[in-house]
């Protein structure tokens, strides 16, 4: 009698556990990206004629989009100024740091333009140990050092971050936890305190709305 009762109880517990596991698995498997259009991305030739120093290594499959700031205050909304600023960064990376090209795969300016950096099929030079992931930099200093004052995320640049992240997330079938700050991987202030919260609190939440239940 006692054995029968115990067996029934065990069967009940087993059923509950199985149901919970099934629910968890189906919830995980049932989300995928809705179609996301490619945003307007300005070509590399719109800001530089300088080619990489060498044939860059292929990037392979990455897991994250890693956000950075350039750390140099920049507030202009002019396309010509942004092009000149990106060229300045490329020259600094190639001449001063002796890298093969600009470090990042995409650049976003305060007016919300998205610019092509190094080819996104190639390894980046933005986050040591994680350069197989796409690096996206926002022009500006979002930390505010040397008393110069910090940039704030503009509505236009935020919208550009959202549309680019959605598109890359959809294109590469990335998991929901794919947006990261540089300082998730290194002891650095990058991408600056004025940018960090946007990435986690707002961008990540916004992206989850682009997923659909199958």
């Amino acid at each position, binding site marked *: 009698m006692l054995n029968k009762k115990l067996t029934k109880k065990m069967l009940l517990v087993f059923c509950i556990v199985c149901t919970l596991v099934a629910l968890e698995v189906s919830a995980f498997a049932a989300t995928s990206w809705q179609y996301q259009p490619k945003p307007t991305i300005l070509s590399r030739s719109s800001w530089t004629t300088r080619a990489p*120093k060498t044939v860059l290594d292929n990037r392979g499959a990455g897991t994250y989009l890693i956000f*950075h700031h*350039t*750390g*140099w205050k920049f507030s202009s909304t002019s396309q010509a100024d942004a092009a000149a600023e990106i060229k300045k960064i490329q020259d*600094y990376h190639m001449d*001063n*740091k*002796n*890298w*093969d090209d600009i*470090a*990042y795969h995409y650049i976003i300016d305060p007016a919300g333009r998205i610019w092509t950096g190094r080819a996104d099929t190639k*390894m*980046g*030079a*933005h*986050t*040591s140990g994680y*350069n197989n992931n796409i690096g996206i*930099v926002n022009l500006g*200093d979002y*930390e505010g*050092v*040397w*008393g*110069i004052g910090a940039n704030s995320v503009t509505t236009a640049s935020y919208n550009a971050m959202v549309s680019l992240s959605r598109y890359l997330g959809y294109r590469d079938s990335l998991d929901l936890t794919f947006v990261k700050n*540089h300082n998730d991987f*290194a*002891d*650095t*202030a*990058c991408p600056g305190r004025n940018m960090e919260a946007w990435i986690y609190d707002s961008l990540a939440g916004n992206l989850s709305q682009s997923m659909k239940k199958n």
Partner: protein
Amino acid sequence: MKKIIMLPIVICVALASIYFINATNTDFEKDLGGKHQIKSHKITNNSEDYAEIQLDLTHSSKDKLKPTIKVLKGDDLVYFGEKKVKDDTLGNYIIELTFTDTWIQKNGKNQMEKLSKDLQTAEDKSNRLLNNVKIAYPPDDAMMVLYFGVSEEPEVNIEEDSDYIKVKLNKKIK
């Protein structure tokens, strides 16, 4: 009467406030950014058993520099551009100091390149521990590495003050 006396005092206080609110560190290079900048450096000692390098700093915050220290063997790979390579010019052992959010000012960089040349072209290379110095940038937009090449296995100590950091290298006693 009271008002006449108070007025200049109020004006002085207001001017002083404006001065201090707008006061910024002018000892930095705007183009470099970062939280810390190395302005210059000097070798204060380089004998057979002991070498000391002083790096002069300026900071944008009260955060300490906290470089990570690694002692590598002479044939270990070191950063050059985006890759790692073997560098025969450094010596039997290499001290790798990795800094984040720290850049070296133009003057300091030129100084270090000249120092590297001087150390390598010196006629008498005996009786000294430090062989060579180099700057490198790992593929990370917040990192910088300083290499100190030495002839003997060293013990490394760092002394850090608000405006300098001293790298002290002692020949390891076996």
